[in-house]
């Protein structure tokens, strides 16, 4: 585990030396294993259903969670595209992992706007989008330590968990291939 992190860090650094100093942070990806307490909040799914966050996270499948907003133009299209390619690469297996994208701009991101966004990224049946009250979204963001004060300050974080296991927290722009590796490792980890 430790060696893997170092390896990744090394690769990220090699990569980062080539880019301009001010943006070097964007290229690095880091991983950590973390336990989070899921808040008992109600969210609204893109299909309009009111659902419980703990229930959605614990539907028996491995879960991959991220936070987006539909009018985020720089980074979210990339992270959403990564999840789209992740689903593509898994093929028929994609339905066995639950992808969850929660809006950090819930007042703008109505269920219908989220549904449209999901269509744009060809979200398969295993990938669902969530909105809700601002308070509910904030509670979820805080619980998973992704709240950065306001939406434009958000940073790319992907969280992944096999049932009954702690969370794998991935910070940075992970590639679809790396994400598939992470997912496979998660399933085979003792």
């Amino acid at each position, binding site marked *: 585990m430790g060696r893997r992190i170092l390896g990744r860090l090394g690769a990220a650094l090699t990569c980062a030396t080539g880019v301009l100093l001010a943006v070097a942070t964007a290229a690095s990806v880091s991983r950590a294993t973390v336990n989070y307490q899921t808040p008992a909040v109600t969210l609204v799914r893109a299909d309009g259903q009111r659902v419980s966050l703990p229930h959605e996270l614990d539907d028996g499948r491995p879960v991959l969670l991220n936070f987006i907003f539909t009018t985020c133009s*720089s980074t979210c299209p990339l992270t959403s595209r990564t999840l789209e390619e992740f689903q593509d690469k898994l093929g028929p297996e994609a339905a066995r992992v639950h992808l969850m994208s929660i809006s950090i701009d819930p007042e703008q991101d109505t269920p219908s706007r989220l549904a449209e966004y999901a269509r744009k990224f060809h979200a398969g049946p295993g990938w669902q989008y969530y909105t809700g009250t601002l308070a509910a979204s904030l509670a979820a963001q805080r619980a998973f330590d992704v709240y950065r004060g306001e939406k434009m*300050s958000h940073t790319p974080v992907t969280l992944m968990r096999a049932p009954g296991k702690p969370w794998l927290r991935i910070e940075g722009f992970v590639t*679809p291939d790396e994400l598939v590796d992470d997912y496979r490792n998660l399933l085979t980890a003792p």
Partner: protein
Amino acid sequence: MPNESRGAAPAMALALSLLMGTCALGAAAPGPSAGESLYRRGQLPSGEPVQALRQGGATVRGADAACVSCHRRSGLGSTEGKITIPPVAGPYLFTPRGKSLERLGVPFVDTARINHEAYTDESLARAIRDGVDAKGRLLNSLMPRYAIDEATMSSLIEYLKDLKTAPAPGATSTVLHFATIITPDADPVKRRGVLAVMNQYFVDKNNAAARTKAPTLYSSHATMFRVERRWQLHVWELTGAPRTWETQLRAHLAAEPVFAVISGLGGSDWGPVERFCEEQGLPCLFPNVEAPVGDDATFYTVYFSRGVLLEAQLIARELAAAGDGGRVVQVFRAGDVGEAAARALEAARAGSGQQVVNHALKAHGPPQELARALREAGAADALVLWLRPADLGALEHLKVPTPRVWISGEMGGLERAPLPPDWRTQARMTYPVDLPGQRVVRVDYALSWFRMRKVPLLAEPVQADTYLALGLMSETLNHMADAFVRDYLIERIEMALDHRVLTGYYPRLSLAPGQRFASKGGYIVRFTDPQGSRVTPLGEWITP
């Protein structure tokens, strides 16, 4: 104040440009270049979406791969999270290392890379295709690589070179010119209130600027210019029919070039003003308009709220949730904003199977007409009143026909709506602002400024919104240093708004690319007592 009066010279220029404006109408506008289509929409000359590859293998396409999504419309870059996206407007790319951009008249922007090697057309093409900078170093992994042909590439590079960095008209080295637009159908009392706030704010702003010495710690030209610029207000009062407004506005702009339009006041039709702002590429920020025309697809017009159209959505949502059989009877005055609201509610209920009956009262008819309109509503119907205080007061001797009554808070005067006691116990009011108890501290900030500056309090909500709009403009300009580029003003407002703590009547304000209404929701309230102005929310803040 000279702000409101116009001298003979501008009047002549106005007449002249009216003439020229008419002549110019004949010329056909050229379509966007291949470079512009790629930059703004991610579209190739064939009409196909562009495909681009990011490091690590992820692909992006179409609008998501458009340059504008990161470098923004101004080309001055942006910031998202920990990522700084550099400016790509010509001078930032092509100025040789060591040359002072400031001396070349290129404004400082906080996203600019310092000390990078200047690009040539060839090295820039290589950067766009292969993701390496002028010295051959890898660009950030977020920057996609684009496989585009020679012709499209040269058109794109030309487009980047043409992106404006010089101060826009209306921003001179000593004065920043702003306009405010008032339509002839605007409420005269609100008009006085709005102008009183604006005139006083400009006086204050210039007094403060005069008192402030250029800071000695900064040697930057930008900072010194910024501090010394005076603000000047031009009041553009429109006359006549809405179809003539765009011509009038073009003439005003030609005679009095302004950097941006701020606040202002509309009546029932703001469409011509919005079209003018979009056509001219002129930021028109936070006008006091109860029924905004636009959608999130416009760029230059930004509103605090959707006003009565938001209220229509709130009521539609309640009706959908109730899901019962009765009809919806809507009453409004012909020509007032209630008409647009009634249409919006009807559209929102289309397909629900619920019958909607609209009853338009004569534009300036007597309140007695109301009695006839109310007879339309049966006990099982929902009654929606898009009415002003005078009509609400006239409900006094009329029986409440149904327990399901909604009134528009925006039109009726919020908690000051003169609703008779019998009606208060039944009627629900749409309330597209924060509750009185929750907004008091934020609004008091404006109210005490009005008191100290002896600004008459004539129409509190629009005056508070006007003060808020001016504060936002002032704050945003501070962040912009001397980059007086109109597109950049809009982009900086989008960025700044989420940080704003003093949000006046609104619980919070938030914008982003593709968001043009800063406050998104409202409450449904009921009067707490038979008299007075206490209201009780019937649930949480709703964002329909």
